[in-house]
């Protein structure tokens, strides 16, 4: 089995202060491997987003360890965490978070610009990423000129343009209709086929179960169940099928 691209070991997190303090995560262990799309499911307030934030180096755990591509985030300050994010993590958000004043190309290029990558090369890579998500013809469009599905594709292009080892998606289909939701999940599943890249999708929508290689259930800050996803089962079936 390949090394995890990101791994949480006994991660606990308390949020808030004083009487309002709550324990959002209670000793979570989770490893995300390359070539795998993991679906993280659970009810509201179960700690999904907190776990996603910790795996994505946005939040530091109160206890436990997170290792990203083998590097521990322990003791890392905000700038060190930012460096880990820009080098190893791509994010896809529920509400896209595109820059309304930038074109699709520039929105994607931004992920490379923050790394200080050469402009011409960054533009070429951004256009390649847009072509990969099927939006080569929309590269000069501004977010408001794009549909919700197209905006999410631009966000996915931004997440993958820097070749991160981990793509973390927070309810990427929640703002989309079924058809667009399926298209986005198909794209993420495609991205997860790269054995060097793991994809974690936080979702409520059970219709996307079929895209998952693994499904992890979280409740009340604890992982309560884990099973192989429909996509993995399909793969298993096709691997076992006797050729006619």
């Amino acid at each position, binding site marked *: 089995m390949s090394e995890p691209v990101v791994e949480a070991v006994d991660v606990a997190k308390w949020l808030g202060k004083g009487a309002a303090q709550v324990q959002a995560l209670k000793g979570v262990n989770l490893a995300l491997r390359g070539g795998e799309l993991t679906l993280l499911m659970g009810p509201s307030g179960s700690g999904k987003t907190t776990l996603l934030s910790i795996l994505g180096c946005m939040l530091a755990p109160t206890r436990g360890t997170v290792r990203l591509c083998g590097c521990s985030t322990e003791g890392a300050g905000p700038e060190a965490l930012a460096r880990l994010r820009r080098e190893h993590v791509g994010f896809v958000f529920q509400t896209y978070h595109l820059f*309304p*004043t930038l074109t699709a190309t520039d929105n994607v290029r931004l992920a490379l610009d923050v790394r200080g990558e050469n402009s011409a090369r960054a533009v070429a890579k951004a256009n390649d990423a847009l072509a990969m998500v099927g939006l080569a013809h929309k590269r000069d469009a501004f977010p408001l000129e794009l549909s919700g599905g197209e905006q999410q594709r631009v966000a996915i292009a931004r997440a993958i343009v820097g070749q991160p080892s981990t793509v973390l998606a927070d309810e990427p289909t929640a703002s989309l209709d079924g058809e667009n939701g399926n298209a986005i999940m198909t794209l993420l599943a495609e991205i997860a086929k790269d054995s060097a890249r793991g994809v974690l999708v936080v979702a409520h929508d059970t219709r996307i179960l079929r895209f998952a290689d693994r499904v992890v259930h979280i409740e009340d800050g604890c992982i309560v169940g884990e099973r192989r996803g429909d996509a993995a089962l399909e793969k298993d079936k096709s691997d076992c099928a006797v050729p006619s």
Partner: protein
Amino acid sequence: MSLIYRLASRNLLHDRLRFVATVVGIVFSILLVTVQLGLYLGFGRIVTTMIDHASADLWIMPPGTKCFEDPSTLDERTRFQALSINGVAQAAPVVIGYAEWRIPAGGTFPVFIVGSDLREGGLLPWNLVEGSLEALVIPGAVAVDRSYFDRLGVDGIGANAEIRGQKVEVRAVTNGIRSFTTTPYVFTTLDRARAFTGTAANKATYFLVRVTPGADVESVRRRLKANLSDVDVLTAAEFRDRSRSFWLFGTGAGFALFAGALLGMIVGTVIVAQTLYSSTKDHINEFATLRAIGSSGIYIHKVIICQALISAIIGFCLAAAMGLLAVAATANTALPIVMTPTLTLVLFFLTLAMCVVSAIAAILQVTRIDPVMVFTR
């Protein structure tokens, strides 16, 4: 090109009204600073006009003389003592003082008399546009500047008036010799100046020393100081500095001008800081997204500083254009606003500094951004 400039410019132009308000704030703030500092320079120049136009290597004056307009007097003996000192080629007496100009049509007006010996020079009128210096030997002849014709109730060569009960006639007209006070300069001969100001015949206000060719001015000054008692001996540059210092700082005028300039800077800084802060607040989601996708704090600070610099450059260009109009409009007034290349450069860097300082509040705000907020908005 990095996206920093594009992000900054589009953030600014996203809310055009606020951008216009920012630029207007910068323009008026910098214009105020330009006018104040321009007036400071103009004032500094105009208070030394007479010293600048005198043909003197050294000025001998009564001790403690604060400025050119200080009408204390020296004895003629001092002049002869000075002339006996090695290295002194000439010690031209100059008499100055206030007098009352009686207008032929009635009424009086204060004037400032400047009298020199026409043969020895010293401090003679310049920029003559009518009449001649030689004409000043004619009894009662004076030279006045044409910008004061209305006040003096004259209309050119041949016009008559009265000073201290003596008839005077305009025989030479100058252009651009203006006083920073409302008192016009009236040039005449040494003796007539004494008569107009009530100065004794053996007295003079200054002795303007020309050193012999090849003599060292500083050595001559040392000798003059050693041999003359109860006088100050200053080079033209020193007298200029002393006069400027008296008028600008002794009277508080310079402080007032600087205080105005400082106020302009403070107002500009507050306006730019306020608009940058609110702009940053409006784009806080975008800055949080930048942080979430891994941008460094410095990258975000650069975006904000770039916004400040764009505002500064546009604001400065407009302010400089308006400043040049103000310079042109005041060029022929008693107190012109002066704009020099150095002042322009200083103002440009002041504008940049003001806008960058203004960005601090916005930078502090984004420094506190928690990237996790992208999941909740």
